[in-house]
């Protein structure tokens, strides 16, 4: 049974400035957690802490991030590489910039599309997200596609590699509403099958309400509220007052 346990995370920047403190939550298997909050509240930083992506030189982290009994933060480099390669996928906010502009899309998918079934799966996903055919996309360079298209290709890449933990930073920022609706359905389907869970960060509160099982609200680096969605809508809390 996979679950991600975030235990007493405290993050300090180099000059002793506290960015995150006292963060505790658990994400059970087959569930979706949304982290919401204002700009600068530390949402994306928290998401970056989970695969230990912050540079140790400038940030000091204390606490534990556990899944399958392993603590990510105290893992060695090779172990960390394995975790990142096999178990976690992180779709960044600006997916367009996470591809090398001088390598065609084919390059990124070569490793995962070795057999017929995965190729079929990939072309189904391209069709699902209303993208042109797989051959057309693979012959393009990342700089040739629009931001929204690059973001969709980022999602497809993440879904194809079947991670145990899927992290999404602002998934709806660059895509329009029909595609966001499609993504919502896909995320629910993905979370409900197999051995995995999803943590996402978003401003889009309507998206959060429809997709997630629980919503956590970050305020100045502290976890101020954590609700199941039904209670989140009922309670007239500080975050929903913004809408």
């Amino acid at each position, binding site marked *: 049974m996979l679950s991600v346990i975030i235990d007493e995370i405290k993050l300090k920047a180099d000059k002793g400035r506290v960015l995150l403190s006292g963060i505790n939550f658990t994400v059970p298997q087959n569930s979706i957690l949304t982290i919401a909050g*204002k*700009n600068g509240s530390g949402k994306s930083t928290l998401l970056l802490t989970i695969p230990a992506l912050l540079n140790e030189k400038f940030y000091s982290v204390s606490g534990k991030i556990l899944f399958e009994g392993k603590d990510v933060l105290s893992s060695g480099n090779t172990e960390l590489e394995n975790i990142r390669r096999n178990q976690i996928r992180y779709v960044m906010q600006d997916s367009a910039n996470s591809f090398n502009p001088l390598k065609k899309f084919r390059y990124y998918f070569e490793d995962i599309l070795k057999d017929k079934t995965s190729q079929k799966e990939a072309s189904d996903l391209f069709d699902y997200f209303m993208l042109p055919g797989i051959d057309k996309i693979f012959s393009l360079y990342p700089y040739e596609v629009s931001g929204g298209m690059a973001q969709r290709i980022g999602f497809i890449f993440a879904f194809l590699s079947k991670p145990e933990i899927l992290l999404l930073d602002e998934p709806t920022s660059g895509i*329009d509403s029909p595609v966001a609706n499609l993504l919502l359905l896909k995320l629910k389907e993905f979370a409900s099958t197999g051995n995995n869970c999803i943590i996402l960060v978003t401003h889009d509160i309507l998206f959060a309400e429809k997709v997630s099982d629980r919503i956590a609200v970050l305020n100045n680096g502290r976890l101020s509220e954590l609700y199941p969605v039904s209670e989140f809508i009922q309670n007239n809390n500080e975050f929903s007052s913004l809408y």
Partner: protein
Amino acid sequence: MDTLLEIKSACYKPPKSFSMTGEENEAILKNISLTVAKGSFTGIAGESGSGKTTLARLIAGLIKPATGSIILHHSDEWKSIHTNPVQILFQNNGEIINPFRRIIDTVQEALKIRNNGKPDSASKPEEILKFVNLNEDTYTKKGYQLSGGEQQRAALARIIAAMPELLILDEPFSAQDPESRINLSNLFTEINRKYGTTIICISHNLQLLKTLCSRLIVMYKGEIIEAGNCNEIFSKPTHPYTEYLLKAEQYSLTYDELKRIPEN
């Protein structure tokens, strides 16, 4: 009310030299006709790739229509001014503000050009920067030192300094949290009211346009499919595609419904 902008059956097709394959490009805008009244606030909605930004560039004169005409009924004073009566707040603000100049100098220069090189006593750059809610300590910062939201406000300050008759906002809310969205939309309403600037706002978020605009235009595949009073469109969309967009925004469509894009 007087008409500021008149577009008569404009079409746009990128020239052949832009094509990578050497074949003729497809038309991006087809038979666009629309009028915009002076002092109004118009919203343009549509999914990505429907030609919203191309229409904005066409209105600003950055590209020329293949057929049809675009007439701007601006006042006579623009004959002696070296700036464009149409200004665009672009999507990628970070690339537009000069990273190596102080913000206050950037705004000062825009003011100077607007007044034909004469120093102007009426408006000061500090006032404009204050109007767009920038902190006083950012005035002397350089472009690269600002955050994304601050860069956007600095770009807006420069546009206000140029006092355009028509202001086009291209996806101004794409990277803002809900609180700054509210602040920013209040700011746009105030520009519209205080300076009497006509504003066209482009966005794929219909709910946001509803709060801002009095008139709404919906585009699909380079054509205007619906235009009219904003509230009327929301309560009674006449085109099935508008209805589809409104429902998709509530995330209430199923997979089959999403795949069946209405084409009328």
